[in-house]
C-alpha cells in the first residue's frame, strides 16, 4: 500500500514537472522562432519586453488571456468550444510517452509508438472540427485542406515508423532506443536514412508548418481554420502547433537519432543529449520556415501519394528483406 502511494506521488510530480517544462518550452519556442527568423531576415525580432525581449512570450500570453473571447453568432457552439482543446490535448499528450533519459518516462506502455500516432491523427480532428464549426468559408476550406493533408501524410509517416519497429522489434519507445544503442551504428539514422527523410517531411506536414502550412495559408485563406477564433482559444491552436513540433521532434529523436544516448556521458545531466537533438530539430523546423515557399494543395497530395508513400513502402520492404537475410 505504501508503495502504491509513493508511486502515485512520483507519477503526479513527474507529470506536473513535465507539463510545466514542456509548456515553458512551447512558450519560448515561439520566442526562439521569432528571434531566429528575424536574424535570418535581417531584423531584430522582439526586443522590448524584458532584456532582449525575453519576457515577450509571457506578455503575449497575458494579452491573449485578457482578450475578449468572441464567439460569432452563426457557429456550432459546442464543437466550436471543444475544437481547440482537442487539438491541444492530442498534440501535447504524446510527450508523456517519450523516454527523456534511461529510466525516465511518465507512462511506459508497450504500444507507445502506436499511441503517439493515434494521438497525432486525432489532433487533426481539432482542425477539421474548428473549420466546420466556424461556419466561415475560409475556415471551411482550411479544414478541408487539413483533412486532405492528414490522409496523405499519416500513411507515409506510419510506414517510416513501421520500419523502425521492424528493426527494433518493439513498439515501446524505451525499447526502441535501447535497440538502437545496441545496434552497430548506434542510431537508426544511417540504416534508415530514407525512413528518416520520409518521417521528417511528414512531420512537417503533420504540424502544419511551412512549406505545408496550407490549412492556415495566411495569404490565401487569411488564417484558415482558426480565422474566427480569438483570445485564449486562438492561443490554444498556436500552443497545439508548437506542442506538435515538440512532440514530433522528440519522436524523431527517439526513433532515429538514438534518444538519450550520445557520444559521451554528461554527468548529472542525463537528458543532455536528448535535449540537444530536439533543439537541433526544432531549429531545422524554424529554418525551413524562413526559406521555403508554400506548396499548393494538389501538389502536396501529389508529393504525399506519389513520392513519400512509395518511398516508405520501398524502405519497409528493404528493411524486411535485410532483416530476413541477417
Amino acid at each position, binding site marked *: 500500500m505504501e508503495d502504491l502511494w509513493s508511486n502515485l506521488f512520483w507519477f503526479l510530480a513527474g507529470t506536473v514537472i513535465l507539463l510545466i517544462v514542456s509548456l515553458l518550452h512551447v512558450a519560448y519556442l515561439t520566442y526562439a522562432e521569432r528571434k531566429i527568423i528575424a536574424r535570418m*531576415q535581417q531584423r531584430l525580432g522582439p526586443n522590448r519586453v524584458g532584456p532582449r525581449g525575453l519576457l515577450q512570450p509571457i506578455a503575449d500570453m497575458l494579452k491573449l488571456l485578457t482578450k475578449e473571447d468572441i464567439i460569432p453568432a452563426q457557429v456550432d457552439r459546442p464543437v466550436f468550444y471543444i475544437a481547440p482543446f482537442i487539438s491541444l490535448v492530442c498534440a501535447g499528450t504524446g510527450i508523456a510517452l517519450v523516454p527523456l533519459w534511461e529510466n525516465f518516462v511518465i507512462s511506459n506502455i508497450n504500444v507507445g509508438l502506436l499511441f503517439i500516432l493515434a494521438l497525432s491523427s486525432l489532433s487533426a480532428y481539432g482542425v477539421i472540427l474548428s473549420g466546420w464549426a466556424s461556419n466561415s468559408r475560409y475556415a471551411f*476550406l482550411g479544414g478541408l485542406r487539413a483533412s486532405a493533408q492528414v490522409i496523405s501524410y499519416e500513411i507515409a509517416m506510419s510506414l517510416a515508423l513501421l520500419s523502425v519497429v521492424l528493426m527494433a522489434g518493439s513498439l515501446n519507445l524505451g525499447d526502441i532506443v535501447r535497440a538502437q544503442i545496441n545496434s552497430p551504428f548506434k542510431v537508426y539514422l544511417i540504416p534508415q536514412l530514407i525512413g528518416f527523410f520520409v518521417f521528417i517531411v511528414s512531420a512537417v506536414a503533420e504540424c502544419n508548418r511551412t512549406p505545408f502550412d496550407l490549412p492556415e495559408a495566411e495569404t490565401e485563406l487569411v488564417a484558415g481554420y482558426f480565422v474566427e477564433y480569438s483570445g485564449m482559444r486562438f492561443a490554444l491552436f498556436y500552443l497545439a502547433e508548437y506542442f506538435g513540433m515538440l512532440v514530433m521532434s522528440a519522436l524523431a529523436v527517439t526513433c532515429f537519432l538514438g534518444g538519450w544516448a550520445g557520444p559521451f556521458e554528461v554527468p548529472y545531466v542525463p537528458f543532455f543529449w536528448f535535449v540537444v537533438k530536439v533543439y537541433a530539430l526544432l531549429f531545422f523546423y524554424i529554418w525551413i520556415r524562413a526559406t521555403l515557399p*508554400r506548396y499548393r494543395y494538389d501538389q502536396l497530395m501529389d508529393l504525399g501519394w506519389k513520392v513519400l508513400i512509395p518511398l516508405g513502402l520501398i524502405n519497409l520492404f528493404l528493411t524486411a528483406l535485410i532483416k530476413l537475410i541477417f
Partner: protein
Amino acid sequence: MSLVLEVNKKQKGKDSWEEPFYLNMGPQHPSTHGVLRLFLELEGETIVNCDPIIGYLHRGIEKLAENLNYNQTIVLSDRLDYISSAANNVAFALAFEKLLRLEVPRRAKLIRTIVSEMARICSHLLWLATHALDIGAMTVFLYCFRDREWLLNIYERICGARLTHSYVRVGGVRRDFEPEVIEELYRFVEEFPKRITDYETLIDTNRIWLKRTKNIAVVSTEEAFNLGLTGPCLRGSGVSYDVRKFRPYDAYSEVEFEVPIGQNGDTYDRYRVRMIELRQSNWIIKQCLDRLSETEGEAVLAENSPDLLMPEKVREVSAQPHPKLGVMFKPKEKEIVPVGEAFASIESPKGELSVYVVSDGSSRPWRLRIRTPSFVHISAISHMTKGHMIADLVAIIGTLDIVLGDSDR
C-alpha cells in the same frame, strides 16, 4: 449576391442541393494588394468563375484634375500608382509639355530618366516582395523591403518625400540633384546587382517556387493582345514592345538597354522578365549618372515653364475704338495655355500609362483622361484564373502586379 439568390430560388423545390461554393475574397484580404474584391465561384478549390469588383479606392482623380491647374495636377498623379509616383509624374508632365510646346533641358531629361528608373526598381522590388510572400516565401519579402528602403531614402534626399514625390514639374524638375545624391546613387548602382543575385538564389532554383509558377496562368501572345496587357505582362508572353524603345521620351533615346521577353507566357516568365528589367534599370541609371556630369551646372527647368500658381484667367486690356465714345478700354480674356489636345504615354513599371489632355485655353485641363495598366490587368484576372486553384489566384494577382490606386483612380 443576386447570383446566390437566383441559385437558391432555382433549387428550392428540388431534392438535390447543388449550390456552387461562393467565396467573397476581399476587399479586406492580405493578398489582394489593396482593396480588390473577388467574387469566386468554386468547385472544391478550383475556380469556376472569378469576378473582380473594383471601385473601393475611387477618388475621382480625373474629375479633380479639371478643377486644378496643370502644376497642381502633378500632385494628383502621385496618388495613381503610389508605388512608382515618379513615373506617373513624368507621364503627366510629358502630356502637359506637349500641350504647352515646352522644350525640356537635357539635364532635366536625364534626371527624370533616373527617377523613373528608380521608380521602376522600387515598384519591381515591391512586386517581388509581395509576390513571393503570397506564394509563401517570407524572407524575400524583407530582403526586398530592405533595398527599397535604400531607394526611398535617396528619394527623400532628392525631393524631401519618400512615396508621393511630385518631384517632376511641367517643363523640367523641381530642383537639381545634390552631389551627395549622385554619390549615393553610384553606390546603389554598384551594390544592387549583387542584391538581385541574392533574391535569385533564394527563389530562382527553388523547386517549390518553380512548381508554383511554371505553367500557371499561361497567356499566349494572341490572348495577351486581346486582353490588352502591357508592360512586363505582355513581354512575358513574347512580345517585344516597350514604349521606351518605340516612342522614346526623356533621355531614353540616348541610353542603351535591352527589352527582355519571355517564351511561354506563364507566371515564371513574367517573373524572369521583371528580374532582368531590374538589372536593365540599374544599367540605365548608371548611364544617366555618367551623362549628368556632362551637363553640370545647366538649368533643370525650362525658362518659359508655367509658374506653380497659374492665374485662373488673364485679362488683356486693349484700347479699342468705339463709334460714339471714342476710345474704349475693353478687357479680353487671353489664352494661358494653347487650345488643343495632347497625348503622352510612358512605360510605367506596371505597363503602359497614357495621359490624354484637352485644353480650352484656361489654366486648367478641360478634360484629363488616364489609361492605367492596372485597370486593364484586373480585367484579365477572370480570364487567367479559369480552372486554376485558389492558391494560384493569389499568384496570378501577384504576377499581374496591380495596384488598386492605379485602377480605381
